[in-house]
Protein backbone atom coordinates (compact mmCIF):
# COMPACT_ATOMS: atom_id res chain seq x y z
CA UNK A 1 0.00 0.00 0.00
CA UNK A 2 2.15 2.86 -1.26
CA UNK A 3 1.34 6.38 -0.24
CA UNK A 4 0.77 8.77 -3.13
CA UNK A 5 3.41 11.30 -2.13
CA UNK A 6 5.92 8.62 -1.21
CA UNK A 7 7.07 7.95 -4.74
CA UNK A 8 10.19 10.07 -4.32
CA UNK A 9 12.98 10.73 -1.88
CA UNK A 10 10.82 12.16 0.89
CA UNK A 11 10.33 10.71 4.33
CA UNK A 12 6.63 10.31 4.98
CA UNK A 13 5.08 9.52 8.35
CA UNK A 14 1.38 8.64 8.25
CA UNK A 15 -0.55 8.33 11.50
CA UNK A 16 2.43 6.85 13.30
CA UNK A 17 1.80 5.67 16.85
CA UNK A 18 4.24 3.96 19.17
CA UNK A 19 3.35 2.13 22.34
CA UNK A 20 6.16 0.38 24.18
CA UNK A 21 4.73 -2.85 25.58
CA UNK A 22 5.43 -4.06 29.09
CA UNK A 23 3.93 -3.99 32.54
CA UNK A 24 3.85 -0.22 32.45
CA UNK A 25 2.81 0.45 28.84
CA UNK A 26 4.27 3.67 27.53
CA UNK A 27 2.56 5.52 24.73
CA UNK A 28 5.45 7.48 23.29
CA UNK A 29 3.90 8.82 20.07
CA UNK A 30 0.32 9.25 18.89
CA UNK A 31 -0.96 9.90 15.40
CA UNK A 32 2.15 11.60 14.06
CA UNK A 33 1.93 12.61 10.40
CA UNK A 34 4.28 14.84 8.47
CA UNK A 35 6.57 14.78 5.48
CA UNK A 36 10.24 15.62 5.31
CA UNK A 37 11.34 16.65 1.86
CA UNK A 38 14.51 15.45 0.19
CA UNK A 39 17.60 17.42 1.30
CA UNK A 40 15.59 19.31 3.86
CA UNK A 41 16.91 20.26 7.28
CA UNK A 42 14.16 19.58 9.81
CA UNK A 43 14.41 19.95 13.58
CA UNK A 44 12.28 18.15 16.13
CA UNK A 45 11.64 20.17 19.25
CA UNK A 46 9.69 19.07 22.29
CA UNK A 47 9.87 18.42 25.99
CA UNK A 48 11.99 15.57 27.37
CA UNK A 49 10.38 12.18 26.97
CA UNK A 50 7.96 13.25 24.24
CA UNK A 51 9.30 10.63 21.83
CA UNK A 52 11.89 12.50 19.75
CA UNK A 53 14.50 9.76 19.99
CA UNK A 54 11.77 7.19 19.40
CA UNK A 55 10.83 9.00 16.20
CA UNK A 56 14.39 8.83 14.88
CA UNK A 57 14.61 5.16 15.74
CA UNK A 58 11.31 4.51 13.95
CA UNK A 59 12.42 6.35 10.82
CA UNK A 60 15.72 4.44 10.71
CA UNK A 61 14.00 1.09 11.20
CA UNK A 62 15.66 0.29 14.52
CA UNK A 63 12.14 -0.23 15.90
CA UNK A 64 8.78 -0.70 14.19
CA UNK A 65 5.74 1.50 14.86
CA UNK A 66 2.70 0.08 16.65
CA UNK A 67 0.36 1.82 14.23
CA UNK A 68 0.70 3.85 11.08
CA UNK A 69 3.21 3.79 8.28
CA UNK A 70 6.59 5.23 7.51
CA UNK A 71 8.03 5.55 4.05
CA UNK A 72 11.65 6.50 3.47
CA UNK A 73 12.68 7.33 -0.08
CA UNK A 74 9.73 5.21 -1.26
CA UNK A 75 10.92 2.24 0.81
CA UNK A 76 10.13 0.79 4.19
CA UNK A 77 12.55 1.87 6.93
CA UNK A 78 13.93 -1.68 6.99
CA UNK A 79 14.71 -1.56 3.27
CA UNK A 80 16.22 1.89 3.62
CA UNK A 81 18.35 0.57 6.45
CA UNK A 82 19.51 -2.33 4.30
CA UNK A 83 20.48 0.23 1.64
CA UNK A 84 22.50 2.06 4.33
CA UNK A 85 20.47 5.22 3.83
CA UNK A 86 21.03 6.46 7.39
CA UNK A 87 23.84 8.16 9.19
CA UNK A 88 23.26 8.54 12.92
CA UNK A 89 24.82 10.91 15.43
CA UNK A 90 23.89 10.50 19.10
CA UNK A 91 24.18 12.86 22.02
CA UNK A 92 27.22 10.88 23.14
CA UNK A 93 29.90 10.56 20.47
CA UNK A 94 30.14 6.72 20.93
CA UNK A 95 33.59 6.60 19.40
CA UNK A 96 35.68 3.49 19.84
CA UNK A 97 38.54 4.36 22.19
CA UNK A 98 40.97 1.83 20.67
CA UNK A 99 40.76 3.49 17.24
CA UNK A 100 42.28 6.83 16.23
CA UNK A 101 40.04 9.60 14.91
CA UNK A 102 40.82 8.54 11.35
CA UNK A 103 40.23 4.85 12.08
CA UNK A 104 36.92 5.68 13.76
CA UNK A 105 35.80 7.55 10.66
CA UNK A 106 36.80 4.66 8.39
CA UNK A 107 35.22 1.92 10.51
CA UNK A 108 31.78 2.01 8.78
CA UNK A 109 33.47 1.40 5.42
CA UNK A 110 35.24 -1.65 6.85
CA UNK A 111 31.95 -2.94 8.25
CA UNK A 112 30.20 -2.39 4.92
CA UNK A 113 32.96 -4.20 3.01
CA UNK A 114 31.70 -4.92 -0.48
CA UNK A 115 28.60 -2.80 0.10
CA UNK A 116 30.68 0.30 0.63
CA UNK A 117 29.92 3.15 -1.79
CA UNK A 118 33.48 4.47 -1.39
CA UNK A 119 36.28 2.73 -3.25
CA UNK A 120 39.02 1.18 -1.10
CA UNK A 121 41.82 3.33 -2.46
CA UNK A 122 39.78 6.49 -1.92
CA UNK A 123 38.63 5.80 1.63
CA UNK A 124 41.55 7.28 3.51
CA UNK A 125 41.70 10.41 1.39
CA UNK A 126 37.95 10.91 1.80
CA UNK A 127 38.11 10.31 5.56
CA UNK A 128 40.89 12.92 5.82
CA UNK A 129 38.78 15.29 3.75
CA UNK A 130 35.81 14.81 6.10
CA UNK A 131 37.99 15.39 9.14
CA UNK A 132 39.22 18.57 7.47
CA UNK A 133 35.60 19.57 6.82
CA UNK A 134 34.86 19.29 10.53
CA UNK A 135 38.05 21.26 11.24
CA UNK A 136 40.05 18.38 12.65
CA UNK A 137 43.02 18.34 10.29
CA UNK A 138 46.08 17.31 12.26
CA UNK A 139 44.08 15.21 14.71
CA UNK A 140 43.81 12.11 12.51
CA UNK A 141 46.12 10.07 14.72
CA UNK A 142 44.64 11.20 18.03
CA UNK A 143 42.69 8.75 20.14
CA UNK A 144 39.23 9.76 21.44
CA UNK A 145 40.62 10.03 24.97
CA UNK A 146 42.90 12.79 23.70
CA UNK A 147 40.08 14.85 22.18
CA UNK A 148 37.65 17.28 23.80
CA UNK A 149 33.89 16.63 23.84
CA UNK A 150 33.28 18.93 20.87
CA UNK A 151 36.10 17.34 18.86
CA UNK A 152 34.77 13.86 19.55
CA UNK A 153 31.34 14.88 18.36
CA UNK A 154 32.88 16.24 15.16
CA UNK A 155 34.62 12.90 14.59
CA UNK A 156 31.22 11.23 15.09
CA UNK A 157 29.73 13.50 12.41
CA UNK A 158 32.55 12.67 9.99
CA UNK A 159 32.02 8.97 10.71
CA UNK A 160 28.30 9.28 9.98
CA UNK A 161 29.04 10.93 6.62
CA UNK A 162 31.78 8.61 5.34
CA UNK A 163 29.41 6.30 3.46
CA UNK A 164 27.39 9.12 1.85
CA UNK A 165 24.09 8.43 3.61
CA UNK A 166 21.29 10.44 1.99
CA UNK A 167 19.69 10.89 5.42
CA UNK A 168 21.46 12.08 8.56
CA UNK A 169 19.69 11.58 11.89
CA UNK A 170 21.05 13.63 14.78
CA UNK A 171 19.76 13.06 18.30
CA UNK A 172 20.66 16.09 20.42
CA UNK A 173 24.20 15.93 19.01
CA UNK A 174 25.36 19.10 20.76
CA UNK A 175 23.23 18.72 23.88
CA UNK A 176 26.14 17.77 26.12
CA UNK A 177 28.42 20.60 24.96
CA UNK A 178 28.97 24.07 26.40
CA UNK A 179 27.30 27.00 24.68
CA UNK A 180 30.37 28.30 22.83
CA UNK A 181 31.25 24.91 21.42
CA UNK A 182 27.63 24.37 20.50
CA UNK A 183 27.48 27.66 18.59
CA UNK A 184 30.65 26.83 16.69
CA UNK A 185 29.42 23.37 15.81
CA UNK A 186 26.07 24.78 14.63
CA UNK A 187 27.88 26.92 12.12
CA UNK A 188 30.17 24.09 11.16
CA UNK A 189 27.24 21.73 10.66
CA UNK A 190 25.62 24.23 8.30
CA UNK A 191 28.83 24.46 6.27
CA UNK A 192 29.11 20.69 6.06
CA UNK A 193 25.45 20.36 5.18
CA UNK A 194 25.78 22.93 2.39
CA UNK A 195 28.46 20.64 0.97
CA UNK A 196 26.85 17.24 1.37
CA UNK A 197 23.20 18.23 1.01
CA UNK A 198 21.72 15.27 2.84
CA UNK A 199 18.33 15.26 4.47
CA UNK A 200 18.86 16.03 8.16
CA UNK A 201 16.49 15.30 11.01
CA UNK A 202 17.89 17.11 14.00
CA UNK A 203 16.57 16.66 17.53
CA UNK A 204 17.20 19.45 20.00
CA UNK A 205 15.93 21.09 23.15
CA UNK A 206 17.10 24.48 22.02
CA UNK A 207 14.64 26.59 20.05
CA UNK A 208 17.44 28.95 19.04
CA UNK A 209 19.45 26.07 17.65
CA UNK A 210 16.45 24.67 15.79
CA UNK A 211 15.58 28.02 14.20
CA UNK A 212 19.17 28.81 13.28
CA UNK A 213 19.75 25.48 11.55
CA UNK A 214 16.49 24.32 10.03
CA UNK A 215 14.23 24.82 7.08
CA UNK A 216 11.32 23.72 9.22
CA UNK A 217 10.80 23.05 12.91
CA UNK A 218 8.41 20.31 14.04
CA UNK A 219 7.05 21.03 17.50
CA UNK A 220 6.00 17.98 19.48
CA UNK A 221 3.72 18.00 22.52
CA UNK A 222 4.61 16.21 25.73
CA UNK A 223 3.95 12.49 26.00
CA UNK A 224 2.35 10.98 24.06
CA UNK A 225 4.15 13.04 21.44
CA UNK A 226 1.88 14.62 18.84
CA UNK A 227 2.68 17.18 16.18
CA UNK A 228 1.71 20.48 17.73
CA UNK A 229 2.78 22.68 14.90
CA UNK A 230 5.21 22.81 12.01
CA UNK A 231 6.95 26.13 11.59
CA UNK A 232 8.58 27.33 8.38
CA UNK A 233 11.85 29.13 9.04
CA UNK A 234 12.07 32.10 6.68
CA UNK A 235 15.77 33.03 7.01
CA UNK A 236 17.92 32.99 3.90
CA UNK A 237 20.84 30.67 3.42
CA UNK A 238 23.75 30.58 3.82
CA UNK A 239 23.13 31.81 7.35
CA UNK A 240 25.54 33.51 9.72
CA UNK A 241 25.21 34.21 13.43
CA UNK A 242 23.94 37.68 12.59
CA UNK A 243 20.57 36.20 11.78
CA UNK A 244 20.11 35.35 15.44
CA UNK A 245 20.19 39.02 16.39
CA UNK A 246 17.49 40.11 13.96
CA UNK A 247 14.10 41.10 15.27
CA UNK A 248 12.42 38.47 13.15
CA UNK A 249 14.50 35.75 14.78
CA UNK A 250 13.82 37.01 18.28
CA UNK A 251 10.11 37.20 17.61
CA UNK A 252 9.95 33.73 16.13
CA UNK A 253 11.90 32.33 19.09
CA UNK A 254 9.49 33.97 21.50
CA UNK A 255 6.52 32.63 19.55
CA UNK A 256 7.76 29.06 19.62
CA UNK A 257 8.70 29.24 23.28
CA UNK A 258 5.26 30.62 24.04
CA UNK A 259 3.62 27.83 22.09
CA UNK A 260 5.52 25.13 23.99
CA UNK A 261 4.74 26.68 27.36
CA UNK A 262 1.06 27.23 26.64
CA UNK A 263 0.74 23.64 25.64
CA UNK A 264 2.54 22.47 28.77
CA UNK A 265 0.16 24.47 30.98
CA UNK A 266 -2.87 23.11 29.12
CA UNK A 267 -1.57 19.55 29.49
CA UNK A 268 -0.95 19.99 33.19
CA UNK A 269 -4.52 21.19 33.63
CA UNK A 270 -5.89 17.90 32.31
CA UNK A 271 -6.52 14.97 34.65
Amino acid sequence: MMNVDATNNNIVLSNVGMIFPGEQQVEALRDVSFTIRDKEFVSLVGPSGCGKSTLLRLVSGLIAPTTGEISVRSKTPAQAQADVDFGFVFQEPVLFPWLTALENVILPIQILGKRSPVKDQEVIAYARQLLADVELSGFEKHYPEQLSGGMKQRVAIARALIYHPPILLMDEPFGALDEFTRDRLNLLLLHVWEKIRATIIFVTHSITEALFLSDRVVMLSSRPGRVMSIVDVPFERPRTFDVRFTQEFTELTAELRHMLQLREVADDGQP
Partner: protein
Amino acid sequence: MMANHDNVKKKSPIIHTLSEWFPAILLFLGTIVLWQILVTVLKVPRYVLPSPLNILEIIIKRGIDLVIQVGWTMLEAIMGFALGAGVAFIAASIFVHVRLIERSMLPWAIVLETVPIVAIAPLLTIWLGFGLAPKVVIAAIVCFFPVLVNTTRGLRSVAPQALELMHLLSASRWQVYFRVRLPSATPFIFSALKVASSLSVIGAIVAEFTGADRGIGYVVVSASYRLDTALLFAGITFSSLAGVVFYQIISGLERLILYWPGARLPE
Protein backbone atom coordinates in the same frame (compact mmCIF):
# COMPACT_ATOMS: atom_id res chain seq x y z
CA MET B 1 70.35 18.97 49.67
CA MET B 2 67.20 21.05 49.36
CA ALA B 3 68.34 22.27 45.96
CA ASN B 4 68.05 18.71 44.67
CA HIS B 5 64.33 18.84 45.05
CA ASP B 6 63.80 20.70 41.80
CA ASN B 7 65.90 18.19 39.90
CA VAL B 8 63.74 15.20 40.75
CA LYS B 9 61.39 15.72 37.81
CA LYS B 10 64.25 15.98 35.34
CA LYS B 11 65.86 12.68 36.33
CA SER B 12 65.68 9.69 34.01
CA PRO B 13 62.66 7.37 34.42
CA ILE B 14 64.79 4.62 35.95
CA ILE B 15 66.21 6.88 38.62
CA HIS B 16 62.76 8.28 39.18
CA THR B 17 61.34 4.78 39.70
CA LEU B 18 64.19 3.96 42.08
CA SER B 19 63.57 7.06 44.16
CA GLU B 20 59.88 6.23 44.19
CA TRP B 21 60.59 2.77 45.57
CA PHE B 22 63.30 3.91 47.91
CA PRO B 23 61.11 4.25 51.06
CA ALA B 24 59.61 0.78 50.54
CA ILE B 25 63.03 -0.81 50.06
CA LEU B 26 64.35 1.00 53.11
CA LEU B 27 61.45 -0.30 55.21
CA PHE B 28 62.08 -3.83 53.96
CA LEU B 29 65.78 -3.74 54.79
CA GLY B 30 65.05 -2.17 58.16
CA THR B 31 62.59 -4.92 59.03
CA ILE B 32 65.09 -7.60 58.02
CA VAL B 33 67.84 -6.08 60.15
CA LEU B 34 65.50 -5.68 63.14
CA TRP B 35 64.33 -9.27 62.71
CA GLN B 36 67.92 -10.52 62.63
CA ILE B 37 68.80 -8.52 65.77
CA LEU B 38 65.71 -9.62 67.74
CA VAL B 39 66.12 -13.30 66.88
CA THR B 40 69.79 -13.15 67.90
CA VAL B 41 69.29 -11.15 71.09
CA LEU B 42 66.19 -13.03 72.30
CA LYS B 43 67.69 -16.40 71.29
CA VAL B 44 64.49 -17.49 69.53
CA PRO B 45 64.74 -21.22 68.66
CA ARG B 46 65.39 -21.77 64.95
CA TYR B 47 62.34 -24.02 64.48
CA VAL B 48 60.02 -21.30 65.81
CA LEU B 49 61.46 -18.37 63.88
CA PRO B 50 64.66 -18.65 61.85
CA SER B 51 66.73 -15.51 61.35
CA PRO B 52 66.95 -13.91 57.92
CA LEU B 53 70.52 -15.20 57.68
CA ASN B 54 69.31 -18.77 58.34
CA ILE B 55 66.79 -18.39 55.52
CA LEU B 56 69.39 -16.90 53.19
CA GLU B 57 71.72 -19.80 53.99
CA ILE B 58 69.03 -22.32 53.02
CA ILE B 59 68.22 -20.40 49.85
CA ILE B 60 71.87 -20.43 48.83
CA LYS B 61 72.36 -24.08 49.74
CA ARG B 62 69.20 -25.37 48.07
CA GLY B 63 68.73 -22.55 45.55
CA ILE B 64 68.84 -24.66 42.39
CA ASP B 65 66.44 -27.24 43.81
CA LEU B 66 64.06 -24.51 44.97
CA VAL B 67 64.09 -22.93 41.52
CA ILE B 68 63.33 -26.29 39.93
CA GLN B 69 60.51 -26.94 42.38
CA VAL B 70 58.99 -23.52 41.88
CA GLY B 71 59.38 -24.11 38.14
CA TRP B 72 57.10 -27.15 38.41
CA THR B 73 54.57 -25.10 40.30
CA MET B 74 54.73 -22.36 37.69
CA LEU B 75 54.25 -24.91 34.93
CA GLU B 76 51.13 -26.25 36.63
CA ALA B 77 49.87 -22.73 37.28
CA ILE B 78 50.42 -21.53 33.71
CA MET B 79 48.80 -24.61 32.19
CA GLY B 80 45.85 -24.29 34.56
CA PHE B 81 45.65 -20.57 33.85
CA ALA B 82 45.56 -21.15 30.10
CA LEU B 83 42.95 -23.88 30.44
CA GLY B 84 40.71 -22.05 32.91
CA ALA B 85 40.93 -18.65 31.26
CA GLY B 86 40.52 -20.19 27.81
CA VAL B 87 37.38 -22.12 28.70
CA ALA B 88 35.99 -19.10 30.57
CA PHE B 89 36.62 -16.86 27.56
CA ILE B 90 34.81 -19.22 25.21
CA ALA B 91 31.94 -19.64 27.68
CA ALA B 92 31.56 -15.87 28.07
CA SER B 93 31.54 -15.41 24.30
CA ILE B 94 28.75 -17.98 24.01
CA PHE B 95 26.84 -16.44 26.95
CA VAL B 96 26.72 -13.09 25.23
CA HIS B 97 25.18 -14.60 22.12
CA VAL B 98 22.84 -17.20 23.60
CA ARG B 99 21.02 -16.04 26.72
CA LEU B 100 19.50 -19.49 27.30
CA ILE B 101 22.92 -21.09 27.68
CA GLU B 102 23.95 -18.37 30.09
CA ARG B 103 20.81 -18.82 32.19
CA SER B 104 21.27 -22.58 32.37
CA MET B 105 25.00 -22.55 33.07
CA LEU B 106 25.83 -19.43 35.05
CA PRO B 107 24.10 -20.56 38.29
CA TRP B 108 26.22 -23.74 38.27
CA ALA B 109 29.37 -21.78 37.61
CA ILE B 110 28.51 -19.76 40.71
CA VAL B 111 27.94 -22.94 42.73
CA LEU B 112 31.29 -24.25 41.56
CA GLU B 113 32.85 -20.99 42.66
CA THR B 114 31.50 -21.30 46.20
CA VAL B 115 32.93 -24.79 46.80
CA PRO B 116 36.18 -24.30 48.73
CA ILE B 117 39.06 -25.33 46.54
CA VAL B 118 40.76 -27.10 49.47
CA ALA B 119 37.75 -29.44 49.59
CA ILE B 120 37.94 -30.37 45.91
CA ALA B 121 41.69 -30.88 45.79
CA PRO B 122 41.78 -34.32 47.55
CA LEU B 123 38.96 -35.56 45.34
CA LEU B 124 40.79 -34.56 42.18
CA THR B 125 43.93 -36.23 43.51
CA ILE B 126 41.97 -39.47 43.90
CA TRP B 127 40.56 -39.17 40.39
CA LEU B 128 43.56 -37.86 38.53
CA GLY B 129 46.49 -39.22 40.53
CA PHE B 130 49.58 -37.55 41.88
CA GLY B 131 50.90 -36.10 38.62
CA LEU B 132 50.41 -32.73 36.95
CA ALA B 133 46.75 -33.23 36.04
CA PRO B 134 45.00 -32.47 39.36
CA LYS B 135 47.17 -29.37 39.92
CA VAL B 136 46.42 -28.06 36.45
CA VAL B 137 42.70 -28.67 36.95
CA ILE B 138 42.63 -26.92 40.34
CA ALA B 139 44.54 -23.96 38.95
CA ALA B 140 42.09 -23.90 36.04
CA ILE B 141 39.07 -23.93 38.35
CA VAL B 142 40.27 -20.97 40.39
CA CYS B 143 41.01 -18.99 37.21
CA PHE B 144 37.73 -19.84 35.56
CA PHE B 145 35.31 -17.74 37.54
CA PRO B 146 36.91 -14.28 37.57
CA VAL B 147 37.67 -14.53 33.86
CA LEU B 148 34.14 -15.73 33.06
CA VAL B 149 32.46 -12.95 35.00
CA ASN B 150 34.71 -10.16 33.77
CA THR B 151 34.74 -11.26 30.14
CA THR B 152 30.95 -11.48 30.11
CA ARG B 153 30.72 -8.05 31.67
CA GLY B 154 33.29 -6.67 29.22
CA LEU B 155 31.55 -8.11 26.16
CA ARG B 156 28.35 -6.49 27.44
CA SER B 157 29.99 -3.15 28.25
CA VAL B 158 29.33 -1.87 24.74
CA ALA B 159 27.08 1.22 24.65
CA PRO B 160 23.63 0.41 23.21
CA GLN B 161 24.12 3.22 20.70
CA ALA B 162 27.29 1.57 19.43
CA LEU B 163 25.26 -1.58 18.76
CA GLU B 164 22.55 0.48 17.04
CA LEU B 165 25.24 2.04 14.87
CA MET B 166 26.42 -1.44 13.87
CA HIS B 167 22.81 -2.42 13.23
CA LEU B 168 22.31 0.55 10.89
CA LEU B 169 25.31 -0.71 8.93
CA SER B 170 23.81 -4.23 8.86
CA ALA B 171 26.95 -5.53 10.59
CA SER B 172 27.11 -9.30 11.05
CA ARG B 173 27.36 -10.94 14.47
CA TRP B 174 31.01 -11.69 13.78
CA GLN B 175 31.75 -8.08 12.91
CA VAL B 176 30.01 -6.86 16.04
CA TYR B 177 31.93 -9.41 18.11
CA PHE B 178 35.41 -8.85 16.71
CA ARG B 179 35.25 -5.15 15.92
CA VAL B 180 33.25 -3.91 18.88
CA ARG B 181 32.60 -6.38 21.69
CA LEU B 182 36.02 -7.98 21.94
CA PRO B 183 38.05 -4.75 21.92
CA SER B 184 35.64 -3.27 24.47
CA ALA B 185 36.13 -6.33 26.65
CA THR B 186 39.94 -6.47 26.62
CA PRO B 187 40.43 -4.05 29.55
CA PHE B 188 37.99 -6.16 31.60
CA ILE B 189 39.64 -9.40 30.49
CA PHE B 190 43.10 -8.21 31.48
CA SER B 191 41.97 -7.03 34.86
CA ALA B 192 40.61 -10.57 35.41
CA LEU B 193 43.73 -12.24 34.01
CA LYS B 194 45.88 -10.39 36.52
CA VAL B 195 43.75 -11.68 39.38
CA ALA B 196 43.72 -15.16 37.82
CA SER B 197 47.50 -15.22 37.43
CA SER B 198 48.01 -14.89 41.19
CA LEU B 199 45.14 -17.26 41.94
CA SER B 200 46.50 -19.95 39.61
CA VAL B 201 49.76 -20.12 41.57
CA ILE B 202 47.84 -20.41 44.84
CA GLY B 203 45.62 -23.11 43.30
CA ALA B 204 48.60 -25.13 42.13
CA ILE B 205 50.25 -24.91 45.55
CA VAL B 206 47.06 -25.96 47.37
CA ALA B 207 46.79 -28.91 45.01
CA GLU B 208 50.39 -29.86 45.77
CA PHE B 209 49.57 -29.90 49.49
CA THR B 210 47.13 -32.77 49.00
CA GLY B 211 49.48 -35.08 47.22
CA ALA B 212 52.63 -34.38 45.27
CA ASP B 213 56.27 -35.33 45.13
CA ARG B 214 57.46 -32.09 43.61
CA GLY B 215 56.62 -28.43 43.39
CA ILE B 216 57.06 -25.62 45.88
CA GLY B 217 53.88 -26.68 47.73
CA TYR B 218 55.46 -30.07 48.30
CA VAL B 219 58.63 -28.40 49.61
CA VAL B 220 56.58 -26.32 52.05
CA VAL B 221 54.54 -29.27 53.33
CA SER B 222 57.50 -31.57 53.81
CA ALA B 223 59.49 -28.79 55.50
CA SER B 224 56.61 -28.26 57.94
CA TYR B 225 56.57 -31.99 58.81
CA ARG B 226 60.25 -31.81 59.65
CA LEU B 227 59.90 -28.52 61.55
CA ASP B 228 62.45 -27.13 59.11
CA THR B 229 61.11 -23.63 59.53
CA ALA B 230 63.94 -21.97 57.62
CA LEU B 231 63.18 -24.08 54.55
CA LEU B 232 59.49 -23.31 55.10
CA PHE B 233 60.27 -19.59 54.90
CA ALA B 234 62.40 -20.12 51.83
CA GLY B 235 59.46 -21.99 50.26
CA ILE B 236 57.07 -19.20 51.14
CA THR B 237 59.45 -16.65 49.62
CA PHE B 238 59.70 -18.59 46.38
CA SER B 239 55.92 -19.15 46.19
CA SER B 240 55.35 -15.41 46.53
CA LEU B 241 57.99 -14.75 43.91
CA ALA B 242 56.23 -17.15 41.55
CA GLY B 243 52.94 -15.27 42.01
CA VAL B 244 54.61 -11.89 41.54
CA VAL B 245 56.52 -12.97 38.43
CA PHE B 246 53.40 -14.39 36.78
CA TYR B 247 51.42 -11.27 37.65
CA GLN B 248 54.14 -9.06 36.19
CA ILE B 249 54.21 -11.08 32.98
CA ILE B 250 50.47 -10.58 32.53
CA SER B 251 50.80 -6.89 33.44
CA GLY B 252 53.50 -6.48 30.80
CA LEU B 253 51.29 -8.20 28.25
CA GLU B 254 48.47 -5.88 29.24
CA ARG B 255 50.60 -2.78 28.67
CA LEU B 256 51.49 -4.18 25.25
CA ILE B 257 47.96 -5.03 24.12
CA LEU B 258 46.00 -2.19 25.70
CA TYR B 259 47.88 0.44 23.72
CA TRP B 260 45.23 3.14 23.50
CA PRO B 261 45.04 5.94 26.06
CA GLY B 262 42.58 5.40 28.88
CA ALA B 263 42.32 1.68 28.13
CA ARG B 264 43.41 0.18 31.42
CA LEU B 265 40.81 -0.16 34.15
CA PRO B 266 41.79 1.30 37.53
CA GLU B 267 43.30 -1.35 39.81
